[in-house]
């Protein structure tokens, strides 16, 4: 650069190597946190077990392959009409259930979605994964209610109710995209799922919260496009 004009890269070169390193690390941290819309690095209180994470990723892949085959899409995970280079940042979110209140006939699960993502993204799809542990042969009716806080935040309203007939143990999925979208649009942060069963069943989920069969919600989200004003 001409004499006397400060050049960003040269400025860096003029620093002592250790100072240079500190500056670059601070830049890297700031760059990553700002691109993730995080004010600071998160403090992790309850990390997910490796077993639960691997099981969830396997289930999601299996689910996507099944969907692709049923819709005649290429099941290499690519989305045919998704034009690469659209440059919009996409997110995949895995939210594992927190245990809520329970009675002899029902159990509640809570799923929380962070303020940052809720405010800056739109939900493309969301699926609830449940692993049924059935007490015995025959079919067992289960009512699945999605509850979300009302505008006061004090009570919960039923966003949707689905009746399932469970015949055997194993994974089941439920589309909760609309419920999670309305959560995000209200800026709320918690989706509650209530499972109600007949008296003699006890808990419909695997007793003892076996880690790798713990319920989770898998959501796909996309960064909101900034509102573009068309100028003519």
């Amino acid at each position, binding site marked *: 650069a001409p004499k006397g004009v400060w050049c960003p890269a040269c400025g860096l070169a003029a620093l002592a190597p250790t100072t240079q390193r500190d500056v670059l*690390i601070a830049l890297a941290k700031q760059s990553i946190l700002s691109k*993730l819309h995080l004010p600071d690095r998160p403090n992790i209180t309850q990390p997910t077990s490796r077993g639960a994470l691997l099981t969830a990723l396997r289930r999601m892949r299996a689910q996507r392959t099944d969907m692709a085959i049923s819709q005649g899409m290429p099941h290499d995970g690519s989305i045919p009409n998704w034009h690469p280079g659209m440059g919009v*940042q996409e997110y995949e979110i895995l939210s594992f259930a927190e245990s809520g209140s329970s009675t002899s006939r029902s159990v509640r699960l809570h799923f929380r979605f962070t303020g940052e993502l809720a405010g800056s993204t739109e939900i493309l799809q969301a699926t609830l994964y449940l692993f049924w542990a059935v007490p015995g042969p025959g079919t067992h009716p289960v009512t699945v209610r999605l509850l979300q806080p009302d505008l006061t935040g004090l009570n919960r309203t039923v966003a949707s109710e689905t009746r399932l007939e469970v015949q055997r143990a194993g994974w089941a999925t439920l589309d909760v995209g609309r419920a999670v979208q309305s959560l995000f649009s209200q800026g709320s942060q918690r989706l509650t799922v209530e499972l109600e069963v007949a008296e003699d069943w006890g808990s419909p989920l695997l007793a003892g919260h076996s880690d790798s069969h713990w319920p989770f919600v898998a959501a796909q989200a996309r960064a909101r496009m900034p509102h573009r004003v068309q100028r003519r």
Partner: protein
Amino acid sequence: SIDCSGDSQMCCRKEFFVDFKEIGWEDWIIQPEGYHMNYCAGLCPLHMAGIPGLAASFHTAVLNLLKANNADAAVDSCCVPTQRRPLSLLYYDRDSNIVKTDIPDMIVDACGCT
């Protein structure tokens, strides 16, 4: 593009790896283990400005025209990224949800003079 080596003064790409374990971020960033925060540095004397292939950018065409007509008017040329790729992250957010995302244009693969 050229990777900086030794005391090269010319426009080149400097490699810089941020190891997440070294900065105490390995508990909330599950994958990858670090971030290649490469950057561009070095001089771009006018005879290097806009050489096709060094900086495939629209500035190149404009600067070539400027040089062809009147070298003095040509503005300074800068050492900038000419090729970048996304940084894929798998991390815990503040509610211990696990999030996977690709942050576009975070890793510099090549540098060149505008």
